[in-house]
């Protein structure tokens, strides 16, 4: 690691310049809570690190044209405390509040959580359920938008080119008739890495007591988070009652059994997800 170069751009134009030097073994440093540890444990020895700490232009939450725009270097503390996020994407507020400890939330960023592509990353199933788009920029300043599912390709793997960086998360706001939540299960109640997590978004018709546009994001099951379209179809248009909570629990258990057959954690996860499903359902009402 003695030869590692750290570049410290202070704005977007310096960032583009820095990206010109990026190679396959280079790393982007956002908050550092994952990368610094990986380097210290010799799991990762980049030749070049581009530190985004100084790029203040990437630290914001804005509400524009019916979308939340969140800069990649916005911390979980800033997201958790933001009123726009709470009002329009409550499940993201809940996820940010449950990540790590206060110290981790003060350093860790949403862009870092996506780019690190951990199978247990808490914002990933949430952003899938919110149908977020991820804006990325390359060394020439060219910008493109990707779905979370396109951007994350496996455990710790993204489809980003080495000269691309995540700059923004764009979330269509949920209407007033939507409800959303995020729940997770880890080995302790607080400050824990998810062993399972669920993001749930539904459109609720209070006259008919039915739900539609159901979106279920699941994390920490297999190598990457995913939308459970099968369960979404089963729930769409149904009566929002206790029976449906039971259906959700049983069907998610089925999903776990299909997703990780033979995995040592399967006997635990296929039962545990039922309790987590009931927690999620209870949060919606």
């Amino acid at each position: 690691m003695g030869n590692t170069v750290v570049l410290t751009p202070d704005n977007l134009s310096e960032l583009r310049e820095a990206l010109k030097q990026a190679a396959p073994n280079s790393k982007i440093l956002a908050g550092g809570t994952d990368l610094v540890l990986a380097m210290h444990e010799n799991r990762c020895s980049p030749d070049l690190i581009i530190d985004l700490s100084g790029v203040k232009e990437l630290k914001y939450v804005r509400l524009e044209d019916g979308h939340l725009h969140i800069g990649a270097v916005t911390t979980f503390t800033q997201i958790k405390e933001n009123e726009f996020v709470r009002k329009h994407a409550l499940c993201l507020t809940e996820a940010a509040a449950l990540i790590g400890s206060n110290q981790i939330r003060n350093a860790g960023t949403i862009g870092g959580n996506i780019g690190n592509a951990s199978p247990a990353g808490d914002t990933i199933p949430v952003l899938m359920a919110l149908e977020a788009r991820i804006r990325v920029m390359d060394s020439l300043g060219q910008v493109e938008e990707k779905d979370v599912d396109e951007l994350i390709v496996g455990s710790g793997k993204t489809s980003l080119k080495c000269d691309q960086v995540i700059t923004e998360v764009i979330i269509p706001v949920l209407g007033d008739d939507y409800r959303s939540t995020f729940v997770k299960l880890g080995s302790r109640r607080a400050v824990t890495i998810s062993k399972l997590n669920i993001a749930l978004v539904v459109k609720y018709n209070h006259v008919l007591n039915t739900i539609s546009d159901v979106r279920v994001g699941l994390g920490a099951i297999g190598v990457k988070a995913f939308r459970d379209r099968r369960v979404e179809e089963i729930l769409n248009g149904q009566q929002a009652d206790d029976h449906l909570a039971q259906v959700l629990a049983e069907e998610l258990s089925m999903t776990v059994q299909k997703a990780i057959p033979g995995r040592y954690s399967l006997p635990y996860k296929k039962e545990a997800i039922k309790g987590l499903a009931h927690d999620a359902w209870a949060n919606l009402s």
Partner: protein
Amino acid sequence: MQIEFKVNGKSCSLDICPTMRLIDLLRDELGLTGTKEGCGEGECGACTVIIDGEAVNSCLVLAPQVRGKEIITVEGLAGDGELDSLQQKFIEHSAVECGFCTPGMLMSAKALLMKNPHPSEEEIRQALAGNLCRCSGYSKIIEAVKDVASLS
């Protein structure tokens, strides 16, 4: 690489190895050994310091990240030969047993009180959730912080 930052009110300009962690910069380069390394992976909070008003784990910060920033370590709490009220209350409540978690506990509590001088017990517990004490001293620590929070 050359970086400039402030620690406990003093300006520093240092030539550092860019892959060094903040905790190593503080302890090995600056001799500020009050900051402790417990787990080294962001679980225990013993290495907590305050950067620009926010509590962070110094074992998860790369030294170049602190350029231009203002750091407070446990050494920065006492001033003019007088203990900070948090330190005083930790002593009065016997909230220190082996003492290894204490600097981190103090810095997490200090960051909370800097933002919110009168936090509720729940807010105190939230702020300290990332700090582990293996001598089972949580109750006394919470009481000590509550005591400071009740001071006008």
